[in-house]
């Protein structure tokens, strides 16, 4: 298209389509750019390219041998065929070699349904095997941590070895022996225990050789629904997927986001999902201890709010999404200003991922400390996220608690309040003192945004159905605010976001559409507040 090629790009033809890519791009990436997926095993964008699986070989016009597209750099004017006879035969041949020793474990293998070997063999493998020899049997090995290794299934792509060496920079896996006897192993009994990122090797293993003990035989891949979300375990905000079935979260998996977490997540966040599945949830609004429906509860609450004369105090926690926090702030202002505090636990140190320096498991063990700061909440409480509520416990005006379960607060918390409104997911002795106990959804059951430690606003989507008649916090607060201030009732999360964005210059001009599923940085992100 361009008459003048800038010297920084090259134009080549792949499968009869022209594509222009920056100099230094490999053929595989160039093909990706036009939507052609070349099958591969050992290549991974986050790791080095050893070109050893020999699956990605493509035919280049004029070359006697096939070229490994994960390694071969695109040159000007090359003509590349990924689906020619030679290339297809090559792939069929390599797949046959994989299946020579690969056990027929599909019925009992967790990877079934998301297995690259299944996928490629189904599309391009031989219809019938012709290996008559007994297969090599190696058995199962516990690698420590959460990882189980089925040696028979291993296709020796060495992604796991390279991940531990290059990204985790903790070389605990190696290839032992050579030739057909080669297999992955640890240093004898020293396994992956204590490695904070070892769970990632289960993600990158293309077959079911490395599997998660936690997920073992739990659910079939094709039964799972996958919802994009954001990890709530620390303020790094790794992009994740909620894999759900039967309205339960079965596992968390990282999503690619080169600005935040690359292709990885830490084991701490990965395994911290059971709390989302807990059943002891508030399911219906309680007005003075009596369960009612939303219309009654909201009407009653509004009239009490109008009557209330005392000042307001607000409590939230760093798990509340931006929309909730923003609405609470607005409500506080309506009640004549007053204290607005939040609590958030802290770890004594952080755990970086050496090979991908952007990803660090942060000290803030909750997802939205930045959001709380932006909306002007003050942090109270100790490093466990407890205490600090002395100032509000005996408040005699309007007390609004959003999210924070108050599990550590005393039984007389809020007992003196003129009006105590509690929006939360679970009950507690302190919460039972509330005049209004309103059930809200967790992050997994609603749409919303979190602001991570780098000042990046990221969206998450609902993967579960809310229990009972629980609603998102912004929905309830938005309805209240609409009555009190005459603003519009936000009927969707993006409208709620637009409303709260008006309150904070950091969010001005940002809309859900801009955020997409990779997020965007806030305006003038300040430096990370460290404590």
């Amino acid at each position: 298209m361009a008459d003048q090629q800038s010297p920084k790009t090259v134009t080549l033809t792949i499968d009869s389509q022209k594509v222009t890519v920056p100099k230094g791009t490999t053929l595989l990436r160039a093909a990706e750019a036009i939507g052609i997926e070349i099958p591969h095993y050992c290549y991974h964008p986050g790791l080095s390219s050893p070109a050893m699986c020999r699956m990605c070989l493509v035919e280049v016009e004029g070359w006697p041998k096939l070229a490994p597209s994960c390694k071969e750099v695109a040159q000007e004017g090359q003509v590349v065929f990924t689906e020619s006879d030679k290339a297809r035969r090559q792939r069929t041949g390599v797949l046959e070699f994989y299946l020579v020793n690969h056990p027929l474990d599909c019925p009992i293998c967790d990877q079934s349904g998301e297995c690259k070997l299944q996928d490629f063999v189904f599309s391009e493998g031989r219809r019938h095997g012709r290996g008559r020899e007994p297969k090599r049997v190696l058995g199962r090995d516990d690698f420590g941590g959460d990882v189980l290794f089925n040696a028979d299934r291993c296709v020796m792509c060495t992604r796991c070895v390279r991940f531990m060496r290059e990204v985790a920079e903790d070389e605990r896996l190696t290839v032992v022996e050579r030739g057909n006897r080669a297999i992955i192993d640890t240093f004898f009994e020293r396994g992956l225990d204590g490695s904070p990122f070892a769970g990632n090797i289960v993600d990158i293993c293309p077959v079911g050789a490395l599997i998660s003990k936690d997920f073992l035989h739990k659910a079939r891949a094709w039964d799972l629904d996958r919802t994009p979300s954001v990890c709530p375990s620390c303020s790094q905000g790794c992009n994740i997927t909620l894999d759900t079935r039967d309205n339960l979260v079965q596992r968390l998996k990282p999503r690619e986001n080169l600005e935040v977490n690359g292709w990885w997540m830490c084991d701490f966040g990965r395994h911290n999902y059971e709390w989302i599945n807990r059943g002891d949830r508030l399911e219906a609004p309680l007005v003075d201890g009596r369960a009612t429906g939303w219309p009654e509860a909201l009407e009653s609450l509004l009239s009490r709010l109008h009557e209330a004369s005392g000042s307001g105090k607000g409590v939230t926690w760093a798990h509340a999404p931006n929309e909730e926090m923003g609405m609470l702030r607005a409500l506080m202002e309506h009640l004549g200003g007053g204290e607005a505090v939040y609590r958030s636990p802290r770890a004594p140190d952080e755990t970086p991922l050496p090979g991908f320096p952007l990803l660090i498991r942060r000290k803030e063990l909750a997802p939205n400390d930045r959001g709380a700061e932006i909306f002007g909440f003050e942090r109270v409480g100790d490093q466990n996220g407890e205490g600090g509520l002395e100032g509000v416990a005996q408040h005699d005006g309007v007390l609004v608690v959003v999210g924070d379960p108050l599990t550590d607060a005393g039984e007389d918390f809020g007992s003196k309040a003129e009006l105590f409104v509690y929006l939360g997911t679970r009950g507690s002795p302190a919460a039972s003192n509330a005049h209004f106990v309103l059930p809200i959804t967790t992050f997994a059951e609603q749409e919303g945004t979190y602001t991570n430690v780098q000042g990046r606003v990221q969206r998450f989507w609902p993967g579960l159905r809310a229990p009972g008649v629980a609603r998102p916090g912004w929905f309830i607060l938005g309805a209240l605010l609409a009555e009190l201030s005459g603003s519009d009732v936000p009927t969707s999360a993006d409208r709620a976001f637009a409303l709260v964005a008006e309150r904070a210059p950091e969010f001005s001009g940002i809309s859900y559409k801009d955020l997409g599923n990779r997020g965007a940085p806030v305006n003038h992100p300040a430096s990370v507040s460290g404590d």
Partner: protein
Amino acid sequence: MSEARKIPFNNPGWAGNTGEFSLTEEEVRGHDYVGRRPPAGGHPSGASSYPYMLAKKDPDAPLFAGAYRERFDKLRTRYPDARSALLPTLGMAQELRGYLSPGTMDEVAALLDLSPAYVRGVATFYTMYNKRPVGRFLIQVCTNISCSLCGGDDVLNAFLNNTGTELGETSEDGLFTVVEAECLAACGFPTTVQINSRYYENVTPKDVPEILERLKAQGE
């Protein structure tokens, strides 16, 4: 056309097909026809190429103390980085201890600042590093193409029968382990057998009992 002249065999390591073993270990190792014997620790350029399995094997011997530490230090100076010294270091460790146990690999890894898993990966790649204890005499019989054409399998069987072992097993008295080896690069002298660090060439099944007697007598 003159007759092809047979050169007198002055080839150290050659057992000869006459069955006479008149060469002593000294003569085999040799020092009086190739310069001077290197100083203790060896010349740095070849510090690791000392006769192996000459010293008595001790699986608990301290690694890299005394003369061996000297050799390691000299060896280390020959390479720009520590990782390159790994193979000769593993060779030296095996010389002392007879085989590479997990503990040995751990110590070598600590010495060279590499991860133990990495050292394990490298050690298991190469055939010569024993991962388990072997007999006093590791008998490696070449059965590759050239020796196989000249009866290598018979020599292997002769060794197995005469030592009373199965392939890869150590004999009861702990003296002999017989394994198959790949081409030892002495194909013109079939069948070649490598016992510890010495090559025995032109071995026939008849020679085998004598060789074993000699080994036992040397009591090395």
